[in-house]
């Protein structure tokens, strides 16, 4: 069971040329025939951050110089995470034409989603860099931690996408359910508000694994060290999640062509 999934993963990674190409195609396709191309992403995210920042910054009574970078990092990172999962849930369904054509490894379609969202992240990250440049970097020491944090973050997104994609291929109402869950998760996770702001319902933050995941990639950029608990939750989720995802993939890998 595991060996089947492992083999597929190995072969998928080996055909990186294919999934990077497929990922690029999708990004380009969405913004083809427009002069600014994928930088529309940057612009629309910038407008979103600007308007939410003004309104909620005032509502929460926050200093904009602190709040705007915080919000930008949170929104951009959350967008990458939730889009990876939402698009992952339709990855097999949308690749029917390829799956029924040739016996390619199946996980390339998941890696394609991750790659695509990393490309989009790179575009959106310009806003974060811009805000850090304007309002200043809080601490240079914590910045390098962002790299391993981001890798761990995406490893977690990938296993959730794998599970979501596999189950969605069988149950076609699942992508809508997943999109709805991600919407709720957006509200109960400290993305536009600070983790400390929920004093009466702080349980929501402490027991929410997604709060730890977002904290992991946000803290290094706003000059804080992720706490050991945050690291432990993220690593634990990755380990158990991957075991679960690989077991499930190994069990149902052969059924995918029948389902799509």
């Amino acid at each position, binding site marked *: 069971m595991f060996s089947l999934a492992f083999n597929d993963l190995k072969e998928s990674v080996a055909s990186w040329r294919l999934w990077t190409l497929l990922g690029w195609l999708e990004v380009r396709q969405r913004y083809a025939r427009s002069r600014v191309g994928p930088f529309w992403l940057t612009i629309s995210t910038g407008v979103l951050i600007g308007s939410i920042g003004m309104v909620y910054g005032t509502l929460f009574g926050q200093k904009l110089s602190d709040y705007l970078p915080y919000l930008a990092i949170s929104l951009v990172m959350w967008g990458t995470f939730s889009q990876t999962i939402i698009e992952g849930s339709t990855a097999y369904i949308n690749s029917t034409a390829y799956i*029924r054509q*040739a016996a390619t490894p199946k996980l390339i379609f998941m890696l394609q989603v991750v790659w695509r969202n990393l490309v989009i992240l790179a575009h959106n990250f310009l806003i974060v860099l811009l805000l850090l440049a304007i309002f200043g970097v809080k601490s240079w020491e914590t910045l390098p931690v962002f790299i391993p944090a981001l890798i761990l973050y995406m490893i977690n997104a990938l296993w959730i996408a794998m599970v979501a994609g596999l189950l969605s291929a069988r149950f076609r109402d699942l992508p809508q359910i997943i999109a709805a869950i991600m919407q709720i998760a957006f509200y109960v996770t400290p993305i536009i508000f600070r983790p400390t702001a929920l004093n009466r319902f702080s349980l929501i933050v402490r027991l929410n694994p997604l709060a730890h995941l977002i904290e992991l990639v946000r803290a290094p950029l706003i000059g804080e060290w992720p706490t050991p608990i945050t690291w432990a939750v993220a690593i634990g989720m990755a380990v158990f999640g991957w075991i679960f995802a690989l077991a499930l993939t190994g069990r149902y890998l052969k059924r995918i062509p029948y389902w799509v």
Partner: protein
Amino acid sequence: MAYIELKGATLDLPIYDVQGRSLKKTVLRMGRRNTIAEGTDGVVVVRAINNVDLRLEKGDRIGLIGRNGAGKSTLLRMMAGIYSPTHGSVLSSGKIVPLLDISLGMDENSTGMQNIRLRGLLLGMSDTEIRAKQQSIAEFSELGDYLDLPLRTYSSGMRVRLAFAVSTAVDAEILLLDEVMGVGDASFMHKAQDRLADLHSRAEIVVLAMHSNSEIRKVCNKALWMERGNVRAFGPVEEVVSQYEAQD
């Protein structure tokens, strides 16, 4: 040494309707003892291939014949490793290249050249291989400057030419073809036939599903007659095809 061996291979295709596709319905059904009210569970299983034993060896040129819906395409998909059998096994060695539906798996918004690369990668070609063959693929397709235009501007004949040119450029040890004739205009048709003949001579095993018996007699040395998922007859091409024609 290339071969494909099917041992008692059976394939049950599940066909889901809207009910069977729904997680909500499936969960709700779990708690219910009375299944009559709900009717079926939304899944119909069709036995597409039934207990097939076959061994194809080097040098075999097999013509797949049978009526529509006899399981020819499904059998090819199973040999290609796209569908894995529900019972029994399919063993093979050698690089398999399936040419099943040659117009699928291309990107509308990419140029012809980019599609050559995409399709080449999908069919398992390496990057250097694609680069080396790009020129000859472009020439064979006769699309010239159109190759720099996006695929969405192509006519259906042009698409098929491009897809055919890329697919047939792969070095295959085992070649699985499903009704690929009927490509483009008359002159291209002729070229395509030559190209296929050349492919046939290079590949070690060729399996060809086709409705033209005369064509099968010409290029194949064995024929496999499928009927409702079962092998009706397998043997020398002349023998099996005449039986098939007598039946029809």
